[in-house]
């Protein structure tokens, strides 16, 4: 086997690379696109008559605190940190919810299937904005005060509070953060559920039979045979859904979670610099989402190598 492979490599012609070949249609599209952009730039500068002024928003990123004599982060950076925290915990939580519900959706037990299906159908058929309001005012607001997470955190040691602050934001706003996080995760989890279900269903039945015939329990077959293959099969759509989650995190600004979009609106109100602020956060969201998509692309390549 080894020798055959080696000899065939030496005689096989080098794989043909995709050539960078320009056709006239590419050039037409390129010039057309460039022309359109130039027109838009000209419009924004003349007809639109907007006076760009970036200097007013810089202080909202970092500002010099005269009292302590240090540079400190301001609204936009604080908002960005909250968005990153929402993204991190949201991906984790939506992933867990989606995996559990995906298992329910594909369960042999009718009741579990019904639970999974109801969850997905309920969320997938309500507009996201409406879901956020319904969830926060009718569900979370009834439960969160009873949990009183913020009150109990306030009684913890200062070092514990420091780490909570790093992981979840200021303890003072932690109830608010948890509420937004759960809302976002429950919402995204429904879409993750469908991806996990598709992944589970993509694993051939014969794999399950092989596991059973080796004496593995049903739980072990799921854990060691089905799920690892299911996840590998759905890396691209899962990446898309997690990127979607980061973008959807801006929805919870509607219920006063102080993440990037919420802070941007604040800054916009006080500075009147609408375009600068929104262009700025557009770039920030792009960088985060593009970065994550590169991470997933690397993961996909690694799995592909392990398989072939």
């Amino acid at each position, binding site marked *: 086997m080894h020798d055959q492979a080696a000899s065939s490599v030496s005689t096989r012609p080098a794989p043909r690379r995709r050539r960078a070949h320009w056709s006239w249609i590419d050039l037409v599209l390129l010039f057309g696109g460039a022309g359109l952009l130039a027109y838009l730039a000209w419009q924004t500068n003349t007809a639109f008559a907007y006076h760009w002024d970036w200097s007013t928003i810089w202080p909202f990123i970092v500002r010099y605190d005269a009292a302590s004599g240090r540079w400190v982060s301001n609204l936009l950076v604080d908002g960005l940190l909250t968005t990153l925290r929402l993204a991190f915990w949201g991906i984790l939580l939506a992933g867990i919810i989606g995996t559990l519900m995906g298992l329910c959706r594909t369960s042999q037990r009718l009741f579990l299937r019904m639970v999974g299906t109801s969850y997905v159908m309920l969320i997938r058929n309500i507009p996201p904005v409406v879901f956020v309001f319904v969830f926060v005012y009718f569900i979370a607001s009834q439960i969160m005060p009873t949990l009183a997470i913020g009150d109990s955190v306030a009684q913890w040691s200062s070092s514990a509070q420091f780490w909570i602050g790093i992981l979840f934001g200021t303890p003072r706003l932690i109830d608010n953060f948890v509420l937004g996080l759960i809302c976002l995760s429950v919402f995204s989890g429904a879409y993750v559920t469908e991806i996990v279900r598709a992944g589970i269903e993509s694993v051939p039945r014969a794999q399950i039979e*092989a596991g059973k015939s080796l004496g593995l329990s049903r739980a072990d077959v799921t854990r060691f045979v089905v799920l690892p293959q299911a996840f590998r099969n759905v890396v691209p759509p899962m990446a898309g859904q997690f990127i979607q989650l980061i973008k959807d995190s801006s929805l919870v600004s509607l219920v006063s979670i102080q993440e990037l979009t919420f802070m941007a609106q604040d800054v916009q109100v006080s500075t009147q610099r609408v375009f600068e602020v929104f262009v700025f956060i557009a770039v920030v969201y792009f960088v985060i989402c593009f970065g994550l998509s590169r991470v997933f692309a690397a993961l996909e390549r690694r799995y592909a190598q392990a398989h072939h």
Partner: protein
Amino acid sequence: MSEAIIRLRGVNKWFGDIHVLRDVDLDVAQGERVVICGPSGSGKSTLIRCINRLEEHDSGVIKVDGIELNEDTEHIAAIRREVGMVFQSFNLFPHLSVLENCTLPQIRARGTSRKDAQAKAMAYLERVRIPEQAAKFPAQLSGGQQQRVAIARSLCMEPKIMLFDEPTSALDPEMIKEVLDVIVDLAQSGMTMVCVTHEMGFAKKVADSVVFMDGGRIIEKAPPRELFENPQSERTRQFLSQILEH
């Protein structure tokens, strides 16, 4: 021969309206090597898949090593620990290395320590003559190598009985021999085996008895020499003349 380790009595099985097994009676003695042959759709695969309950029989009794196969999950688990199975399409776990394919079931279903599981896996990979492939993934191996890994993986569970469901049907001709050699070795070591196959040369060489099935029934069961040279039923004669002509 000693008493039957596999005993089927009046087994019936339907897939919807299709009656795939009809009143099947079969005894396989400890250490017996049985080859099942017959035209496609005759119920051969279904029959052996009932023995480790990958298919549920609808009526009749199946006892393996004295344990009756029924709804009882304990019974099913106990039987699956005693019965190894090799599939036509290998069914190795593609996300695990060859070694992990062999150790995972030992660790999870037998509670073997990782170290012991690896030692045993290497011993059986040695026996199927591919220890050097242990670190590779299934997709990096040829079909014949994959099937030998699948056999090693089953043997790692120290089964009392091995079921083979057309183990060479998905292989290129030049790989059939390497897999059959391994199975012949195993047969000669005294393993109880039930093998669905069209390899009549193999049947002649190792089988104690050959079962001919058609239309969900066992038509004949006899030692290979008798069945091949002097089939009792017209249907068997016909089938044999078709496959032996070439």
